[in-house]
């Protein structure tokens, strides 16, 4: 087992038995389900809307080179500097060098999962820069030194009490009782940071090729402030975020809000097409867009799973996943949690180290059913399992199945062995799941049905004998 797999099973086991954690997640998601369903009901046809959204992303992903070039040219036309980064290190180096070149000391950052993926904040801090997360949830987990718990709700695993304790310890703030008071503490801290920062960093939800715009979806206003107050702005964009037309956003923005948070539209949906233009009085004087590959092209090269690049990071598949709800976001040990994380992480970070995530699924298909861009998630989990085994077969599987086949082809042996199993059943039942149970790997978490007193063959014989 890989070290990632050992960590995963240890943490998953711990959190599955943590009833306090489970209650917190159930409560948070309960509210989400209600709001999401209310919103979905307003759609003329949610299923056709899904197909439309998927069609837009399919078009983009399957002509990725064309649309990226168009995006890059359109951005450059308004004075944006576009940088293409093959991997995380290249992106982080570039952003650090931009910061150094401008003499930057303090950075205000809005939410970016792509930034998390390449450990951008850590890389910049190592270069001696102060990086402050401005999204409230991200700010809280940053203060605690934790990774985000969920793609969309980074701090959903924390209670107000824990957040209050964190604020008191890290910010020296007074005790606060309510989410409102806690939010205002963060707001006041952040106001200072926006005005002091000499560089802003943001992520992107979409990038429109047709017009050369980065689209940023948020609720708090932190992304708007981070992208308009500092003189220098860098936006990091995964190459799969591109969409062909501006009109595609007419569907994707409401669907992202509905699937992600049960909203009609999120509070701010901002299109950034360049730095401060002639006639504008504010906005960044310099705007860099970093287009990041970081093995997305490896996923693109797998036509079977290419649709995983349709993902708009709404987090809906996490919210409905029975595995996520039990083991929580941190157990995955990945940037992207839940079903989508289990599907793409093996492509981004290595199949053998991360295949265990694809095995940790009930294959119920709730993820694929809820996905607003129709990613075939649960089948991709199965494909990852298949690919992992094909790439690195388990040595004992073949002999076991060969032995089973040999046994099953011998009726005499079967007739002899079946009653033996029936005799052994009470013993197996008594030791079920304990260390001495030879089947404990299976029975530890599963029931062992008591075999019937008769086989079908015996029953049939007796029945005919009675006649």
């Amino acid at each position, binding site marked *: 087992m890989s070290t990632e797999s050992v960590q995963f099973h240890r943490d998953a086991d711990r959190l599955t038995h943590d009833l306090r954690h489970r209650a917190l997640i159930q409560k948070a998601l309960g509210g989400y389900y209600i709001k999401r369903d209310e919103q979905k009901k307003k759609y003329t046809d949610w299923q056709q809307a899904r197909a439309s959204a998927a069609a837009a992303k399919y078009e983009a992903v399957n002509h990725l080179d064309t649309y990226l070039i168009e995006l890059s040219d359109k951005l450059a036309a308004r004075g944006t500097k576009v940088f293409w980064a093959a991997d995380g290190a290249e992106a982080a180096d570039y952003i650090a060098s931009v910061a150094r070149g401008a003499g930057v000391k303090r950075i205000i950052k809005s939410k970016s999962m792509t930034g998390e993926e390449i450990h951008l904040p850590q890389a910049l801090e190592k270069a001696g820069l102060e990086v402050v997360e401005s999204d409230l949830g991200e700010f809280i987990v940053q203060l605690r030194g934790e990774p985000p718990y969920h793609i969309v709700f980074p701090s959903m695993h924390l209670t107000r009490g824990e957040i209050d304790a964190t604020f008191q310890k890290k910010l020296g703030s007074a005790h606060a009782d309510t989410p409102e008071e806690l939010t205002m503490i963060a707001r006041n801290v952040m106001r200072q940071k926006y005005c002091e920062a000499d560089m802003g960093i943001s992520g992107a939800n979409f990038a429109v090729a047709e017009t050369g715009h980065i689209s940023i979806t948020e609720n708090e206003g932190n992304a708007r402030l981070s992208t308009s107050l500092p003189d220098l702005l860098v936006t990091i964009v995964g*190459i799969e975020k591109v969409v062909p037309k501006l009109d595609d956003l007419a569907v994707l923005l409401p669907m992202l809000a509905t699937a992600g948070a049960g909203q009609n539209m999120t509070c701010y949906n901002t299109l950034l097409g360049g730095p401060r233009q002639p006639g504008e009085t504010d906005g960044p004087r310099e705007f860099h867009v970093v287009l990041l590959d970081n093995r997305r092209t490896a996923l693109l090269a797998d036509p079977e799973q290419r649709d995983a690049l349709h993902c708009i990071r709404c987090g809906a598949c996490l919210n409905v996943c029975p595995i996520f709800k039990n083991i929580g976001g941190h157990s995955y040990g990945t940037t992207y949690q839940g079903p989508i994380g289990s599907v793409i992480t093996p492509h981004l970070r290595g199949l053998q180290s991360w295949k265990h995530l694809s095995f940790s699924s009930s294959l119920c298909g709730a993820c694929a059913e809820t996905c607003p861009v129709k990613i075939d998630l649960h089948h991709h989990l199965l494909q990852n399992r298949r690919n992992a085994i094909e790439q690195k077969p388990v040595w004992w599987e073949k002999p076991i199945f060969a032995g089973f086949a040999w046994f099953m082809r011998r009726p005499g042996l079967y007739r002899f062995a079946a009653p033996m199993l029936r005799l052994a059943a009470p013993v197996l039942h008594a030791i079920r799941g304990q260390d001495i149970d030879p089947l404990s790997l299976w029975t530890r978490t599963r029931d062992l049905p008591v075999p019937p007193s008769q086989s079908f063959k015996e029953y049939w014989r007796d029945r005919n004998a009675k006649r």
Partner: protein
Amino acid sequence: MPNDSRELILRRIRKALAVTAPARHLVGAVTGPSGHPPQDWLPPVPASEAERIALFEKNSLDLKTEVRRCSDAAAAASELAALARENNWKSIGSHRFALGNEAVSALGLPVVFTDQPYETASLERCDAAVSGCDCLVAQTGGIMVTSASAGGRVLSVLAPHHVVVASTSQLLGDLADAFAVLRKHHGSPPAFVSFITGPSRTGDIERILVLGAHGPKKLTVLLVQA
């Protein structure tokens, strides 16, 4: 500066796309070049102006945006004055726009104008921001702003209270209509466009809604009959 990997990435993409991916998601879909435009599947938008106003008001209520109907520009000016009194404004940020000019100057308050060079710190101290917009979107309860229509990129998000003065003729159906207006007003969409859909909010602490996370805690639309 490190070297750009543009050609490497494009090469990787083209190699990957040599094999076509199945389009499973299109099975059963009636969207496409010959089918319905995608926005047909979104929440429906009524055709008449009165119904659209009603839908905008209903969405605004859900979003906790306050909508005040005004019969004309003079009524909007007195509503703005009422807001200034109710909320005890000492200074405001604004910009020059046809629907708001008279109402703003009638307040008699110090104004930081953001359509001319201004200091962020003095805007940050303002109690409210009064701005125009490009259009309102009935389907979402949204307000589309650009630098030209709303006094720059910052005005509409920095103050604790944002007041938008708009006319009923600016109310459109959905986002696709709003994008059409962008093209009409600006040729191609400008470098800054934002859809504001309710006052700033967060649910990051126990998923409990709190308004005014970073941006305005209050959002008021003065909707002038036109």
